[in-house]
């Protein structure tokens, strides 16, 4: 859903801001609407699920009176609209609430979990897109060669293997057989944390590289077959120059879009690798929150994930407009 703010202007009057800035403004307004809808949906789903947080808080021997007392104390007996209004009001004041089970502000829980997930996410993202892109380019230029077949074979295996299976295999090789790396937990900070993150990063990178490599191979291959590349070669331009000025530029929009899609997929999709390696990241926090019916945690984490997805998509769109003049012109033409 988006708001068309151009309807308040006549078409023959020039805009005071650039088309790009206007597009960003439109997306931000749309983002607010999206986030609003997300909060309503999550709120509805978590309240519709059987079982309530009072059971997690009170434990298995809780009496009906205690359960009722916990519900009252946490305003869980208030009408849903009232609970939602309170949540949104607090949210507008920057307060995500307090976790029922952890007894700490949700923002603190999220920040702690993000300290695990963000390095994992960013390292995996950079490695899978850069290495995947490089392998894609390499194989696109050597289609049908042994190297091409080897890389394609690797990507098929990578794409076919479940994350947990890849994780266990790597843990066995690097943790058990070689004894190089720890396989459980997130470490004590600093280099210890870096060491604990190597295997999760490697696992996720292998799985994601399967997609990025194949996508890059196809896209680079398409560009390499275009007339402009043939013409450039006939002019005697070097391969490096052609790759840099023709292939990469003409594939830029698709590669940035792919990188954005990978990042979006990873934002909420690292839960399996977190479980395998015992990492208390955002995914694990969300799963635990759902299991324990810790409503503030679930609402807070989903909101943050939704926000990240919106921001990533916005950044991707902006980057595409920046690097591709055709898109900029299209935008200007429609404004």
């Amino acid at each position: 859903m988006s708001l068309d703010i151009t309807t308040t202007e006549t078409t023959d009057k020039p805009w005071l801001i650039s088309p790009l800035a206007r597009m960003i403004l439109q997306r931000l307004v749309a983002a607010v609407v999206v986030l609003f809808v997300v909060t309503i949906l999550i709120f509805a789903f978590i309240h519709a699920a059987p079982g309530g947080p009072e059971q997690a808080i009170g434990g298995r021997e809780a009496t009906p009176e205690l359960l009722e007392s916990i519900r009252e104390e946490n305003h869980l007996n208030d009408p849903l609209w009232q609970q939602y209004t309170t949540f949104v009001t607090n949210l507008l004041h920057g307060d995500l609430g307090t976790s029922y089970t952890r007894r700490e502000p949700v923002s603190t829980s999220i920040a702690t979990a993000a300290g695990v997930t963000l390095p994992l996410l960013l390292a995996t993202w950079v490695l899978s897109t850069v290495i995947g892109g490089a392998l894609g380019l390499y194989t696109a230029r050597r289609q049908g060669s042994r190297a091409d077949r080897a890389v394609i074979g690797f990507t098929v295996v990578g794409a076919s293997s479940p994350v947990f299976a890849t994780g266990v295999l790597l843990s066995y090789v690097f943790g058990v057989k070689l004894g190089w790396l720890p396989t459980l937990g997130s470490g004590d900070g600093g280099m210890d944390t870096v060491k604990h993150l190597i295997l999760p990063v490697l696992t996720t990178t292998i799985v994601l590289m399967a997609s990025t490599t194949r996508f890059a191979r196809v896209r680079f291959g398409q560009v390499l077959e275009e007339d402009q590349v043939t013409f450039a070669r006939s002019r005697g331009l070097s391969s490096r120059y052609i790759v840099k000025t023709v292939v990469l530029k003409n594939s830029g929009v698709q590669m940035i879009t792919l990188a954005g899609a990978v990042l979006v997929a990873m934002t909420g999709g690292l839960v399996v690798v977190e479980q395998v390696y015992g990492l208390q990241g955002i995914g694990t926090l969300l799963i635990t929150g759902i299991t324990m019916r810790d409503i503030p945690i679930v609402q807070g984490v989903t909101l943050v994930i939704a926000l990240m997805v919106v921001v990533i998509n916005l950044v991707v769109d902006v980057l595409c407009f920046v690097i591709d003049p055709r898109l900029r012109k299209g935008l200007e033409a429609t404004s």
Partner: protein
Amino acid sequence: MKMSQILATRRRVAVLVIALVSTLALAACTSSASDEAADDGDLNLIVPSAPASWDTRQTGSLTLAAQLLVNEPLMTYQADGAVVPNLASAVANPSLTVYEYTLAEGITFSDGSPLTVEDVKFSYELHSAADSTSYTAAAWSQVESIETSGNDKIVITLKAPDPQFRYTIAKVGIVSKAYYDEHGDAVGTPDVPQIGTGPYLFDRFVPQSETTLVPNPDYRGEKPRFKSITMKVAKDDAARVVALQTGEFDGVVSPPLSQIASFEDLDGFTGQEAPDFGLYRINFDTKKAPFDDVHVRKAIMHATNRQALVDGIFAGQATVAPTLVPESIMAAAGDPAEVKQAYVELESDLAFDLDAARAELEQSSRPDGFDLEIPVDQGDPSQSLIAQTIGQDLAEIGINITVKAMDQQGHGDAVYFKHTADGLSIDSWNGGTPDPLNIPKNTLLPGLFGNVAQYDNPEVTELLDAYQALDVEDPTRVPVLLKALSISGDDLPMVPLFTPKVFAFFKDGMELKNFDTFWYMTRWTDNLTTS
């Protein structure tokens, strides 16, 4: 491509490979966690769970293994079953409902503040308050008053005799009132670590995942022997086994029964086992048709091959349960010969016999059988396996089941709290104290959470009350309990299936002496030996 370009490319690849190998080698050289553990006195364990907070109201069972090393109890449970003074110097029982504790002198919290009777009173009132969210609030609901007298006396008066209360005291760690006054509900979170009088301090805590304890330098007693104790949760089954194989960990406690065979195959680790105080059971909601008909309940009981469940699902790592209390627990409290005889009789009533099952069903209100949905907790895969296994035999007598996997809270809501399931459920129930009364009380008395069957037999209630009123040394206690179990066995509100064993695996040369199902209540670090 020119030769010079090819060579340049190969050089770059070679440099990259060397850099990667160097990085990994560096990581290998600096990967000290696995090699240093035992030598440096670090103890690293894999545990099944960790709390969301170290507030004493939110911990119980295995998490007490860490909690009680920091927050010592007034009285300590010992592996031989005795409960002995710890922070108390003496205890007296003027009557079965009054416990008088004398606080030992000169004890301080890890922040240097002195331990007072007000701290003890406050620690207990966290659990006994009417609106307490303590996991053990039910046990404390029997407390009428907690009073202090002078500078060293704490007097607890119960509403009625409760032989389990001595264990309740041994499970509650003492906290600092001043610390709680200052920090409120934040105590026990990563930013506000819990403090106590014990030999260890909380050093690092990741909720529901990792905890590291370090020695309390000012501890009054013998200096703690481990430089650190780290407990990590491994959720994934395969990851748990691999993590142990890396050598990073010294052991795993209470692993899932389904993984015991995997751990037994590991080189360098030795297993320990003990009977668990708990059981898997089939519950019948006696307030719901058709399970309000005892013939239906008996038909299902006779169609349940419990030995096949033990052999097929748990590979023999459990023993068939004739009743709610494991024989070893009951025998420890009474005359073993008398207990054995009673258990033989109880077991004979639970025979697997499909002809008898059909005969019972024909006498029931549903002679042609019926369809049934069984909710199972997906967090415990054994429940689903049990349901599917018994479903095959139930189909033979005309009862067709479907299994519905639910998450923990959904399952709890349907089975324990709102009783919205069809009326037959499968669960495991563990005893919270070593007293034989624990499971019968929680599962047979009306209104209690564990009484999924909504069973209410005044005669059984009276017998259980009578048991509670007797002194723990009274030899007539066990016969009273056996009679209650016999009567409830005839009523059959639930079918006891089997008692699983509890396991721990430690590196060769390490052993947890006197390992039993309540090891976490003991000062277990003193019992952990290395050779």
